[in-house]
């Protein structure tokens, strides 16, 4: 069966809009939350896909940015809700409950951290890069565990979801709409980015750094910029994820999460615009269905993953469209 990739993409978007609306009519808020979770994970993986799919950099530490986004939300909201001051050295703030501000802070912080991690880890490539990003992830994980002020190992609960002007974020469908809108914006920007001179140069740097250099461009700079953008998007997803659960914990920094983000992309298809979205939907569905059947659903997830790597290169989109690679 060969299907057009555009048709699949349209179907997925339609499903993402239709399912929550159906759940709203049927009064099943849990389904809406489930779809919201898939959308947020898709957003995080979409961030990772910029460097992994288009830039060819396998970051095994992207949970760093997810966690930074989560903790940014957690810390700002914690101070706002407890009316305590947050001392940032140069100035103090009372925190904030406003989602847009939290998003800006989360993306900004993630971008700064991505700049530092990128500067260090992009000195290397291949296996070294994989291991170094993994190690940075662990570094943040252990830091979060030892950060007693914000819950340490137990994490930090935020009792009320943050505010978005004009919306009631406590309604699952309205929070879903926010997340979905952000995902659409990011996917749109990503599509434009891929077609832009920067995207083309990044793709070229993935294929041959030396040729890009002879064309007068710096592969390191291209990759670093992609890494920073990627980190900022994953950071945004982290802030949303924390708001969805109203809870942040060091597990947002865990290496398993970094692995899962890669898994989402692979399930859907590397380097494809909708790959992370399809991957996230399938993953959350699997988690829900298999998790309901057996406590040990990870065994099946492992087997499915293994068969995708061994037999279905190109992920689900590759399988359905009959094209293994995403790139022309």
């Amino acid at each position, binding site marked *: 069966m060969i299907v057009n990739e555009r048709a699949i993409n349209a179907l997925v978007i339609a499903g993402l809009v239709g399912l929550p609306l159906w759940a709203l009519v049927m009064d099943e808020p849990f389904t809406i939350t489930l779809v919201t979770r898939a959308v947020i994970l898709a957003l995080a993986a979409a961030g990772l896909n910029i460097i992994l799919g288009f830039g060819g950099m396998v970051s095994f530490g992207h949970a760093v940015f997810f966690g930074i986004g989560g903790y940014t939300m957690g810390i700002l909201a914690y101070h706002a809700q407890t009316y305590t001051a947050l001392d940032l050295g140069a100035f103090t703030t009372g925190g904030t409950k406003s989602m847009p501000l939290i998003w800006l802070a989360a993306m900004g912080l993630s971008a700064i951290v991505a700049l530092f991690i990128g500067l260090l880890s992009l*000195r290397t490539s291949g296996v070294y890069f994989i291991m170094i990003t993994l*190690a940075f992830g662990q570094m943040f994980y252990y830091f979060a565990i030892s950060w007693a002020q914000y819950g340490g190992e137990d994490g930090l609960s935020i009792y009320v979801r943050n505010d978005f002007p004009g919306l009631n974020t406590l309604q699952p469908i309205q929070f879903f709409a926010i997340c979905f809108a952000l995902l659409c914006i990011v996917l749109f920007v990503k599509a434009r980015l891929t077609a832009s001179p920067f995207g083309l140069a990044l793709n070229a740097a993935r294929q041959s750094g030396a040729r890009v250099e002879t064309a007068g461009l710096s592969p390191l700079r291209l990759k670093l910029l992609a890494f920073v953008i990627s980190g900022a998007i994953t950071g945004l997803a982290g802030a949303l994820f924390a708001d969805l659960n109203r809870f942040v914990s060091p597990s947002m920094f865990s290496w398993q999460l970094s692995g899962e983000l890669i898994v989402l992309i692979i399930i859907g298809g590397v380097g494809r615009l909708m790959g992370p979205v399809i991957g996230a939907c399938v993953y959350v569905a699997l988690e829900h269905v298999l998790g309901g059947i057996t406590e040990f659903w990870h*065994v099946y997830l492992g*087997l499915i993953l293994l068969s995708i790597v061994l037999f279905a290169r190109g992920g689900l989109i590759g399988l359905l469209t009959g094209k293994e690679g995403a790139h022309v």
Partner: protein
Amino acid sequence: MPSLLIIEQILNGLQFGVMLFLMAAGLTLIFGVMGLINLAHGSLYMVGAFAAAAVAGATGSFFLGLVAALVAAAFAGAIVEIVVIRRLYKAAHLDQVLATFALILIFSEGTRWVFGSFPLFLDIPDAISGPVTLPGGIEYPLYRLVLIGIGLAVAVGLWALIERTRIGIQIRAGENDREMIAALGIDISKLYTLVFALGAALAGLAGALVGAIQSVQVGMGEPVLILAFVVIVIGGIGSIRGAFVGALLVGLTDTLGGVFLPELFKLFMEAGAAQRSGSAIASMGIYILMGLVLVWRPTGLFGARA
């Protein structure tokens, strides 16, 4: 006496380091010879620990438990190599990461299925438990000294195996040019299975030995795996010597940092804050070390190839 404390902590660091070496040696060997990044190495560590705990629990013999750990991990490694890993040698690193990540999921949940979620315990036999008095009046657990001894013995044995035996020549040749040694009539796929099983056995041994000081539980392998990654990144991927130096550096940094950084911070901070920030920075110490090494030498201390 502070100097006694320092010596004790150095011994702890050495013990931690040599156990890391057992893990890192297998990882670096597998990468050096087959070019494979194996995330499931931590699972083999866990398999070793569980095999040791199960057999030692059933027979009452710690020694039999160790043998079981070696055999079970080598066996699991060989099976995994033949069924899955063999198909990945020519694949991209991303595929290798993913497939071995899938193996972690299967191993971890499979083990939970068989043994349950509660940790098992592995008792140290009486003959090598309890403290000994070292010259200078230091009381130190005998078992940890035994671990240091075993680690050093394995390091020497591995060196001899690779530098002095026929198999070692083949392994080194396999690192340099796999087509060439295949052309010389050596069954390369058998050699690969052997190297993988050897790495697995070392990981299983480490799991069993460490399992006796900590508890044996699902998920015990991955933190060690990541530390072993740090070790081989510092040492240079593919270099056994690098793995040894890296393992000792990481072991000592982690152990000494955790004890002495808070003390150091107390010199210029108030005690509570010093304790907090000292231990926070100590927990990141080895990653900072790794970062510094990479700035200095992007391919690690003993790594020649990029």
